């Protein structure tokens, strides 16, 4: 096996450890919710395998046992998961020499967590094999996601509230720390700050769309300012 692929995969797997904790916490809660809603465990596990997206699964596990909600579940799933398209577009330039079949399989593992860790790593510098790094992050994370789903379903009751609070913040905390250690580009730092401050504003104006709409507004403004400053700089 190609040593570059192995080294990149192992590096990604190390970076996946906090993601695993975060995923476990999310799906543990998902398991509790599904159990309380009366969804059979096989259906919950199937959903975690094929959807692999917590924010879309929470409403679905509540609605599915009620019956007659197919259209609502499918439409809300598509709307909530539209963000994956942006992430796939953003990752594509780092996977230039990957075979189409491998890409098609790896695509299933794009989530905000696997994307964020990989994207921030690639901003520092390319790994010897970016796609293997991504798989190193994504495959253990996917396994934790599925294990958390099952454990939460069967053993979810009785976790202390304080620990739940701490566990829930593992992944946002890790992303914050990654940004603090990886970000060097001044414009990117400005974008991160503006996006953080703008999210509650956009979310209050258009509830449920804060993440994507805010990102589009901030990114478009940033690219506009960058293009303008390049066109007016003396060297252009």
């Amino acid at each position, binding site marked *: 096996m190609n040593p570059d692929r192995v080294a990149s995969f192992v590096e990604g797997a190390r970076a996946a450890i906090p993601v695993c904790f975060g995923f476990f916490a999310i799906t543990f809660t998902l398991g509790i919710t599904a159990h309380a809603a009366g969804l059979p465990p096989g259906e919950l596990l199937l959903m975690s395998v094929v959807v692999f997206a917590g924010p879309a699964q929470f409403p679905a596990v509540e609605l599915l046992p009620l019956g007659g909600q197919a259209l609502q579940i499918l439409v809300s799933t*598509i709307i909530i998961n539209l963000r994956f398209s942006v992430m796939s577009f953003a990752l594509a330039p780092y996977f230039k020499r990957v075979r189409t079949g491998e890409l098609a399989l790896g695509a299933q593992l794009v989530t905000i967590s696997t*994307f964020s860790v990989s994207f921030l790593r690639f901003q520092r510098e390319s790994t010897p094999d970016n796609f293997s790094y991504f798989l190193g992050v994504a495959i253990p994370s996917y396994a934790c996601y599925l294990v958390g789903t099952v454990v939460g379903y069967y053993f979810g009751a009785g976790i202390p509230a304080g620990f739940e609070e701490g566990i829930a913040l593992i992944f946002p905390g890790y992303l914050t720390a990654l940004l603090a250690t990886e970000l060097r580009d001044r414009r990117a730092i400005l974008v991160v700050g503006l996006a953080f401050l703008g999210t509650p504003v956009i979310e209050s104006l258009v509830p449920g769309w804060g993440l994507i709409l805010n*990102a589009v507004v901030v*990114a478009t403004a940033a690219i506009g300012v960058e293009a303008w400053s390049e066109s007016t700089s003396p060297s252009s």
Partner: protein
Amino acid sequence: MVGEHVAIILGMGLGTYVLRVFPLLLAHRFPLPPRIIRWFQFLSYSIISSFIWFGFVKGASSLGTVGFRGIALGLTVLAAARTKNALVGMGVGVAVVLVLSQVGL
């Protein structure tokens, strides 16, 4: 009923998979211009930042909870920037949240 549930779940999976795979294959086949790639970089930073905001505010039951999460966020940034180690930063942030939630803030 079970068959209907399975069909809905498979539909959710298929729809989500198309959203994931289509842009990846499209941008792989037709490379994006540098300006669009840069726009996606900014978009990605924005999404990550917004996600952090949602992660810290979601499920907060009171202003006090948001406050101590804010303290944890600040200490996370300080610890990570000082040590250049994301795991240390995350550990400090989570420890602060655990301690403050245990003392009832």
